[in-house]
């Protein structure tokens, strides 16, 4: 079947009248298998993950030491939370984490989004010459642009977030640098998460936790890997029983491989960012749109709660681009047309690393 299926299973949940209020809470929407989503702040990422970040899940972002792209993800995540008035907890190894709040992007005004809508409309002209077309429902129901409360905003990275989004908001900022161990931080997280517990009553709001660079060398606890692992484990279990999402970034190059693997397994959704070399002629030949790219984003795992069926993505690596230098978009990587005469680009791209000079004993 071409296109997105409107439903993932044969059964659809019976939504009672009381729980219809959920759809009125901005920033939350129903997902498959009784889960709920909240937005990551990046519309393309929401689409790739099938709706957004699942409530109750742990999202890990693997950083690249050479590029600050994980900060883009964290910024959009935090801004989206502030726009939807969701309580926010932010922790970083900087001495003054409050300063980071000044760099959060502002949602784009609607007149800039017209170019997006045009792309959506062109897809509706899909012509299918068989009878199953009648099963295609609304594929683009998420793209309602009218109405003030959107599920996911497009953020303008050049404009800082306006002040009125900060006022009256619960924003906790914690510096990880001074604490010798994680116990105080753990207590803060637990008390934060106890505000948004998951129970049978109606959900009022969802919380967001953003932890930047866990395991950065400035923190004293960075070599106590067991402590960090037990912290993450207990955070994951607390989050499961609350209506919140935690996004944690960590630098895999600075921690031991075993620890990095353990963190990757602990994550419900695992994403990694990678830097790309500048003015690399090989890459420019291999990929279209290389000039606009700032980095690569790979999705390794997508959270699947209440189900055994994994998500298999069509593509796992996406290029990060800044459209008009303002908003972050993720695109599939497209291979540039291979020049038939040279015929060598395939050979050079299939080698994982190493020199393009062939040695004497190369097959």
């Amino acid at each position, binding site marked *: 079947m071409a296109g997105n299926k*409107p439903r993932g299973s*044969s*059964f*659809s*949940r*019976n*939504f009672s009248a009381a729980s219809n209020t959920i759809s009125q809470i901005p920033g939350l929407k129903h997902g498959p298998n009784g889960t709920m989503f909240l937005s990551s702040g990046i519309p393309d990422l929401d689409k790739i993950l099938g709706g957004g970040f699942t409530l109750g899940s742990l999202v890990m972002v693997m950083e690249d*030491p*050479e*590029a600050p792209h994980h900060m883009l993800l964290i910024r959009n995540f935090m801004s989206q939370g502030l726009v939807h008035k969701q309580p926010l907890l932010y922790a970083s190894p*900087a*001495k*003054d984490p409050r*300063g980071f709040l*000044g*760099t959060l992007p502002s949602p784009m005004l609607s007149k800039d989004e017209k170019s997006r809508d045009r792309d959506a409309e062109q897809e509706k002209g899909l*012509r*299918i*010459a068989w*009878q199953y*077309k*009648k099963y295609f*429902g609304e594929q683009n129901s998420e793209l309602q642009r009218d109405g003030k409360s959107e599920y996911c905003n497009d953020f303008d990275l050049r404009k800082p977030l306006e002040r009125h989004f900060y006022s009256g908001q619960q924003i906790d900022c914690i510096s990880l*640098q001074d604490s010798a161990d994680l116990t105080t931080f753990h207590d803060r997280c637990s008390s934060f998460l106890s505000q948004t517990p998951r129970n049978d009553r109606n959900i009022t709001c969802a919380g967001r936790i953003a932890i930047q660079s866990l395991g*950065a*060398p*400035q*923190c004293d606890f*960075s*070599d106590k890997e067991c402590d960090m692992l037990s912290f993450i484990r207990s955070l994951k279990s607390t989050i499961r029983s609350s209506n919140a999402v935690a996004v944690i970034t960590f*630098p895999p*190059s*600075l921690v031991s491989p075993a620890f990095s693997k353990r963190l990757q397994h602990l994550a419900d959704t695992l994403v990694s960012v990678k*830097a*790309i*070399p*500048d003015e690399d002629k*090989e*890459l420019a030949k291999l*990929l*279209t749109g290389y000039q606009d790219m*700032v*980095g*690569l984003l*790979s999705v390794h795992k997508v959270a699947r709660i209440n189900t055994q069926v994994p998500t298999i993505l*069509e593509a*796992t*690596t996406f290029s*990060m681009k800044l459209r008009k230098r303002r908003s972050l978009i993720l695109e599939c*990587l*497209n*291979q540039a047309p291979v020049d038939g005469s040279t015929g060598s680009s395939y050979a050079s*791209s*299939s*080698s*994982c*690393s*190493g*020199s*393009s000079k062939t040695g004497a004993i190369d097959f």
Partner: protein
Amino acid sequence: MAERICRALRDGALEGEHAPALTIKDSIQSPFGSLVFNHVLSQLSSFIVAQKSQSQGIVLVAFSRGPLYYEELFKSKGNDVASSNKWIRVLDCCTDPLGWRSKLMESGRIANLTLGTSTTASLYKNVKDLDKLLLAITELGKELVGDGKGRFVVAIDSVSEMLRHTSISSVAGLLSNLRSHDQVSCLFWLLHSDIHETKAIAALEYLSSMQVSAEPITRPVNGQRGNSVKLPFLEQNLRGGKIHVRFKRRNGRVRLMSEEFCIEQSGIKFTPISSEAEMIAQSLVPKVQFNLQLSEKERNDRAKVVLPFEHQGNGKTIQIYDGRKSLNEDKPEMQYTSAEKVQTVKDSGRGEIIYFRDSDDEMPDSDEDPDDDLDI
């Protein structure tokens, strides 16, 4: 390129951004890191004296070489030492890093040795306490540039020496606090990469925005060390080498550059790479897909294709596409009829079960006629 790095350091940090940080790395095969350090230091000092840079002064934290050495260095480069009071301060952590000398002098064990002191140097005796060191550096900096908008450069003679006394996490904390300090314009440090663990080196590379590593021009062919290393290689490596630069740009891309250098009487000289050096192609091999998007022209062409068995209806004779020509006139009609087939999605007020057939080779049900597809 060395000039590029010096210019990047000279331009300093933007408002609200971390200061650019340079790591200069070397190893025993090419032990010229200190010469590169001296070169960068003298370049920056000439920029500062000529008032062309963002910063107005340098705070030099000298661990491995004393302030007298640097005085000589500046003299030899032609900088006016007398006025150096205005733009440089040296934090002397080399003469008495742990305070032992002063303790011995107090207790009278050794005679009071008067070392040649300079007006720009201040003695620091407690290198194990990095919080105090940070305070000392920032105070010296404020002394130089005042309390307002002035900025200063911090140069650390050797982070390897610092790592002898304290842990990597405190050094990393110091460096990151310096980077985020409002008045620091840029900072750079020297590191000897073969005497530290990879974790420490990775941490320092994580904190820096530019890395220069000095490497030998040629490595011994067999990789053997000791007596079997050929003398010509050694000689060549002692006269010059290559620097590899990794530059983290603001937009998140990484720039890789290389240059050669040779050691001369007056110092170090950089030249662009002469030989056809092996360019190591580090291709990322992401899983690239073929271009599935259509351009405008392709879209139009696709719209013109007549598909077989499509509901062409309306009593006309069915036109089966035989691959030879494309028809234009039926396009709008076909779109209209297929649009009618889209049913509205069931209302979400009630739960329901929808059954999708799993496989095609099941026996066809009685209610489903596979010939429904065809419009005959």
